[in-house]
């Protein structure tokens, strides 16, 4: 290996590791998780087998015999090597345990009361009710809520109970008893049938289209062209002001908008004396919510286009502009025939780039309307976030959220590849001139 390759590996290794673990792996995992039912309930590391009362209820709905289920759900008290061991470890009276082991090994009791009555008659019987109550639970045997690490353990336990379950039923039961996550395509099925999907898709299209056309491209063009015609000092002030929303921390930026629109906010302070009823301008109607969602995001988004378009306009040869003025073009004609044609590529670039970032951004909406009122401003990316990381019910739907995110990831991958076309890639990978 050449000297420079060795140094190259050392130089690039940290970046490779970080990008691989926190960028490429997440892309992959988003794909994997979206085919699972992972949630807070299932955990993420895999699970165990557990029969819960609610599971039994479900099974009885599915046509399992009531008697069989009762026998699974019943508890018994056994004097066996295993239960004795548990009691010993828990520190129960050794003399009592010794007596149980020598004389009563193998006896079964069907209820706690019966078992405790039996215990009280023994020679080494517990001396207090408290001791009795603390000793008896160690001998309890029940499948309910017991964790089995493997399916085999569960089946063995079921067989031991000598229920009338058929092998088929046992399989069904153990599958239902699994508490961890399982592979499934339900997320995508759910996505296609839920009415919410249509709503958030519609919302996303509205959000991206309006913000992109009105602000990220439209208003950005206006800013770039307008500041171009102003004296340098004034132009600088306006550009600096319009960069403010972009550099301000987003939480603070949204607070300012909330202050503007709140029930007792600035807008009301101005409009109230004019006879307009006091209201929360941001959330009182769907239309208003959308206006502010677009404004809040648009004010941030306009700056990128402004900067790119401005530098493209400055790159237009000055004589071209002077010539058009000499030829008698008015300002509109100058913009239309000289400036705009020069901006074709920057406009296309900004459109594609910002379309992608709007599609996947949700921070400002989360902080301002949080998808409200109702879920009228809930966009796709926000829905993914809400489902997986922040929902009202507390049971976070990682799997479903990942499936929603996967849609965006796929779009992101496709559009990122489109970007390769924007760069003259061959030029960027010219061979290094030092051949060491």
């Amino acid at each position, binding site marked *: 290996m050449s000297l*420079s*390759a060795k*140094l*190259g590996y*050392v*130089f*690039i290794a940290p*970046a490779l590791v*970080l*990008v691989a*673990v*926190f*960028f490429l*792996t*997440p892309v992959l*995992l988003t794909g994997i998780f979206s085919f699972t039912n*992972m949630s807070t309930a299932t955990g993420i590391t895999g699970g165990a087998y557990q029969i819960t009362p609610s599971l039994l209820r479900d099974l009885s709905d599915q046509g399992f015999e009531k008697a069989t289920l009762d026998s699974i759900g019943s508890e018994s008290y056994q004097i066996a090597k295993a239960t004795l061991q548990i009691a010993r470890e828990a520190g129960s009276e050794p003399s009592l345990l010794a007596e149980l082991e020598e004389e009563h090994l193998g006896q079964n009791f069907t209820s706690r009361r019966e078992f405790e009555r039996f215990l009280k008659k023994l020679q080494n019987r517990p001396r207090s009710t408290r001791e009795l109550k603390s000793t008896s639970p160690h001998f309890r045997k029940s499948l309910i809520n017991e964790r089995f690490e493997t399916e085999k353990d569960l089946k063995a336990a079921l067989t031991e109970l000598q229920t009338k379950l058929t092998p088929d039923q046992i399989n069904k039961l153990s599958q239902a008893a699994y508490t961890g996550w399982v592979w499934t395509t339900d997320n995508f099925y759910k996505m296609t049938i839920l009415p919410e999907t249509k709503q958030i898709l519609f919302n996303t299209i509205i959000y991206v289209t309006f913000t992109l056309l009105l602000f990220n491209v439209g208003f950005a063009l206006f*800013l770039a062209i307008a500041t*171009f*015609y*102003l*004296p340098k000092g004034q132009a600088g002030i*306006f550009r600096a002001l319009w*960069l403010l929303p972009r*550099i301000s*921390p987003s*939480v*603070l930026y949204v607070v*300012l908008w909330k*202050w503007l629109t*709140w029930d*007792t*906010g600035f807008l009301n*302070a101005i409009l109230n004396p004019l006879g307009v009823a006091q209201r929360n301008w941001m959330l009182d109607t769907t239309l208003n919510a959308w206006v502010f969602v677009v404004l809040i995001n648009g004010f941030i988004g306009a*700056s990128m286009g402004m*900067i790119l378009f401005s*530098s493209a306009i400055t790159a237009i040869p000055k004589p071209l502009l002077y010539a058009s003025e000499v030829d008698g073009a008015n*300002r509109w004609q100058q913009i239309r025939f000289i400036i705009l044609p020069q901006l074709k590529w920057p406009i296309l*670039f*900004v459109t594609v*780039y910002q379309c*992608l970032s709007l599609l*996947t951004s949700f*921070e400002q909406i*989360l*902080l301002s309307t949080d998808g409200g009122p109702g879920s009228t401003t809930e966009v796709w990316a926000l829905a993914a*976030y809400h489902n*997986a990381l922040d929902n009202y019910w507390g049971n976070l739907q*990682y799997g479903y*959220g990942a499936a929603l995110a996967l849609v*965006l*990831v796929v779009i*992101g991958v496709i559009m*990122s590849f489109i970007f*390769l076309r924007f*760069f003259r*890639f061959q030029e*960027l990978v010219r061979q290094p*001139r*030092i051949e060491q």
Partner: protein
Amino acid sequence: MSQNFKNWPILTALVLATVPIVLMYSYLVLDTITNTEPGGILPSSFTLEHWRFLYEDIEGKANIWQVTLNTLVFASSVMLLVLSVSSTAGYALSRLNIPFRREFLAGVLILHAFPSITLIIAIFLILQLIGLYNTLIGVIIVMTSLQLPLGIWIMKGFYDSVPWEIEMAGLQDGASRFTVWYRLVLPQVRPGIIALGVFSFLSGWGEYILPTVLAPANNVQVLSGYLASLIADDRNFEFNLFKSVGLFYATPVVIMYLFFQDKLMNIYGGGTKG
């Protein structure tokens, strides 16, 4: 530029469009030191009470200085990590003969446009698995990784513009590739390092979602989360307090912005060029 056209129509339109920004930001400053009657537009009295959060903890909230320290640690670690990793990787991609250089570059180019925020669910689960959930280190590493493609891309652009002859001369003078990079090339890309450093510091300082999702605990809270939780808390709903915290939060940003405005313009212009 041209004097052949009148400026005032443009100026008027611009001023009107900019009114909301000017309003919001001037009241941001004004409201932190004044009180306004309910329903009033102009402040009625001067006060410093909105700044009390600096010396007394707000009920149920973490200590502001602890939170500020966390934010500082978070933002500067992200900055240092992004800088050191991007400046080495960018150099390797720009100048060194490594196998698969082409593929690496294409990868960086694709990722730099990739919407990383869509990955947050998977990242959240990864941090849980490797035990870095609810730690500052975890968020720092994640934030750094997500910034890397852009950082590497920017640094590569800057390295590309350093003349090859400088490096060749360095080799002839007997310096190793490492020495050449460290002592001859790195000083040439100082503007890039400053720009990227400021950019990644500000990104870290302003980031809200990553710390909120990946490290929600009180003891690792950063200013964005602090301010957001303050607003979400119904017990003390007071815009002047939010603004004071917000101004306190934004001051370093504004100062850096004033100093490095030109350099930042380049990066906020999409990071497509150095």
